[in-house]
């Protein structure tokens, strides 16, 4: 706690490691979307689930998959 801040860069620490922010944000999408789908699907045992809820949940699921696929396919921001 209380480390000095704003100190000069150390060259050794600028070595690239870990995964890119694009991938991390992709993981965030998956985690968040999974949570949302879990919330909707937790009502699976309601009697009108198939007609009332499933079309919407299916639409959201397809959208998330399309989001990830198109994002992976799209040209980079270079």
């Amino acid at each position, binding site marked *: 706690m209380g480390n000095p801040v704003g100190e000069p860069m150390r060259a050794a620490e600028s070595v690239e490691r870990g995964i890119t922010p694009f991938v991390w944000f992709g993981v965030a999408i998956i985690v968040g979307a999974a949570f949302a789908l879990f919330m909707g699907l937790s009502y699976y045992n309601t009697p009108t689930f198939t007609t*009332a809820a499933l079309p919407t949940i299916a639409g959201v699921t397809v959208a998330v998959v399309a989001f990830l696929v198109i*994002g992976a396919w799209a*040209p980079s921001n270079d």
Partner: protein
Amino acid sequence: MSTNDAASPESAVAEQPVPVFEKPPAVIRFFDATEEAIRSRLAKLTFFQRVFQLDRDWMTRITMLMVVASVFWGIVGAFDIFGFETQVTAFALGQSLHLSNQEIYSSLTLHGIRMLFGFAQQLELALFGIIFVTAFGLVPRHKWAYYLSVLLVNLSMVLLEGPFYLFPQFNDNYFPALGWYFYSPLGIRGLSSYIASPLWYFGWIALCVGVILWAAWMLIHFLDWWRSHRGQVRRIPPFALFVLATVILIPVSYATVLASSAWDVFNYFGVGPVDPLANQVLFWFFGHGVVYILFLIPITAFYFLVPIFAKRPIYSYRAAFAAAVIFTILTPLLSIHHLYLTPVPPWSAWLTMALTFLIIIPSAITFFTIWMTTKGVKKGEWQWNAVTLFLLLSFAGTMAGGLTGPDNNTLAFDIDLHNTMFIVSHFHAIALLSIAAGGFAVVYAAFPLLAGRLWYSPRLSQAHFVSTAIGWGGLVLFMDLLGSDGILRRSLIFPLTNAVVADQVWLTVFVIVSISAQLFFVANVLLTLFRGELLTVQGLSLDEIVRKMAQSTHPKPSVPISDSKFVRRTPRSRREGAERGWITVVVVLIVGVLVATSPLTLSDSTTIGTPSDPPAGSEYLSLVNYQYYWGVQESGPVHGSFSDVMVVHAGQWVAVNATAEGATGGFYLPFRNLPTVDIQVIPDAMSYWLFQAPSVPGVYAAPDSEYNGPWFGQDVAALVVLPTTGPSSLAEYQSSGGEGDIYNPPVMGASGAFLIVDQEGLFDNSVPGPTLTATPGPVSFQYYIPRSSIGIDNYLVNVTSNDPNGQLDYLAAHNYTLPYRLGIYAINTTGGNLVPVTTMPLRVGSVMNETATLPAGVYVYGLTSPIPYVYNPAGQSTWMTGSEEGEIMGIWGILWVSP
């Protein structure tokens, strides 16, 4: 203009020079002189000088004042929810409640008010104001208009808190218990059993005026900038588009709540008629708009910060522009989706559903654009400091909360979700994981600029992020699990099943974790103010300053803060092609979902809004919600008038028409194995529903699904489903778990039953009380009302006094006997009312034996008609402080006698 073009903060926040030929008015000179006198004195005290930045320009000073005020309201709001959740958990664990119902629900109301408007929105206004001024290089003007806006916003928080007595006896029981929003006429004198102080409505008006004034201030400055830069600026920075959207949406949204609040004030003082339905629609233009106004915090944060840390422009400016425009146009149009269960015209429900699906488009554009902005950023070019970590959390949180929005928006699904903790989970996923996380990203990126110092402790910021993410994630998860359990929102009284109790306890644990996590943040802020390294910004662009400030939240900064030259290689057409492809998919999916869900939506909304044509042999229920109990008038195979009891036959069609006398209520039959019945019931309007009763005879609970005052938890009716022919036992009912609804009262044998009244005035923490079963012949069971159950929440002893022992004194003076009779009553299904079989005086502190010889049939036991109650602590209720009275029916249940 890019963010790099911005003027330095020093020049941006310089005091406005006053032309020598133009003296400000005397009143302004007086304010200036007074402020200067106070400032110069307080500045001598290091604490005030540092915390309020008293040696800085006025824009920095007022922004710090707003930040400090917002943190203050945030802390108070956190204590509010701590009070509420610990009391609810105490109920779950069978412990004593130390707060009255009034205080508990006030905690919830004030939690919402303080968090949304005192904390989040005030922080938004503060940050958007300073960022706008700084990024655009503006010289702020109209200081006292800005001060007045801040004063009104904070004054409104005080007014909304309600009055309290200092003498002759200190009394702070008159906090409002309305909900962060309120359904007119709840709280209005002469129209509602629960009456809020008029300060509540004045508070809303002050809030409206204050926030609209802020938006006007922003708009004037933007127009100044626009006029002075006309022809020189090719593009407004993407983040500024969303700041502008906020500035536009505030007056549009707040104008409606200003109108509905003014209408309420007129009604409060008996001027003019009230139209609760129109008032609710008007209010929800604001109620929806304000959520999007706050949602623009993370959106602005993404557009502002992600390009800075990615060191490259946004993926597609035109996409961002389109998103801002669509957000701004659609947001004010969606109020009806909060009113799907009210009797609004079916076309308006369907149209709002379609428009609400359309508002997915700007969100879809935004999150695709932001994500794509990071594509191509190399591993070593990005640093995970507190700013970017909170951006990541906000990104995931918006997915979690935002993608549950379509569930709510599907009207047919909304019937299952609308009044449960699912909504609370959805809302908090947005409010915390999306909005507040985005807000913290902005705070970590901007606070050093206000403080003039870099963040003191990277470790504290890391601890803050980790503990906050855990606390908020757990909190949202267990709210959702409570929703899946079937628990209504705002429930203080609920079924004490193992799953519900466990989920409630875990929810409280994560609330405590969430609150505790903010101590790391507060400690870091204080340490930064007093020990942080001075921030120097000479020669740095705005982007570099932001990176430098954010870098101070990383223990081992490794990414240079300097701007790097960016050469665009991917042509715009390819990037926009990807955007178009994504939006095409979204539009196709929206159309598909709309087509699939429309028939049921139109059918359900038509059912709510218009009387149906029920099949022959249906039972007709005419219901009136008297705020805390239901008046039931039946015709059809069963005739009669009852309170809180509805009698139908197994499998019979039931046509309901319902209205309210008093506040808006909700008729809710949460069958889990049959389609849920959930309609709002509004004064001066009629709601309808047609449903088929369960095929299994039993006792099905019908809690009031709409919060309508501090005793709404006691407001639970019962649908008694009789066998079609002859007596029937409850064996099948019990084996199927009461058709799956946990609200159904527990079933126990009458023989040996010993029903104890709790401090809420209920039998065995359940309303209706346990369903007792017996065989024909002699039936016997016992009641007991302990003296320890008598208190401010036990409506049975209707005595208010300055003396805290007044209720027990009253009992002693009346031989511990109350003026009511407990009994067993036969349900007469062929006309009339309940027929008494046996009754006895209601006594406190002695065991009462109920004995009768009964033929097969269904009976109601206990106190079977509502009794009047007045909540008037210390006898200080007046129309100015607020008051509470009503009729409540809590100690009753069904006795089922069958072979």
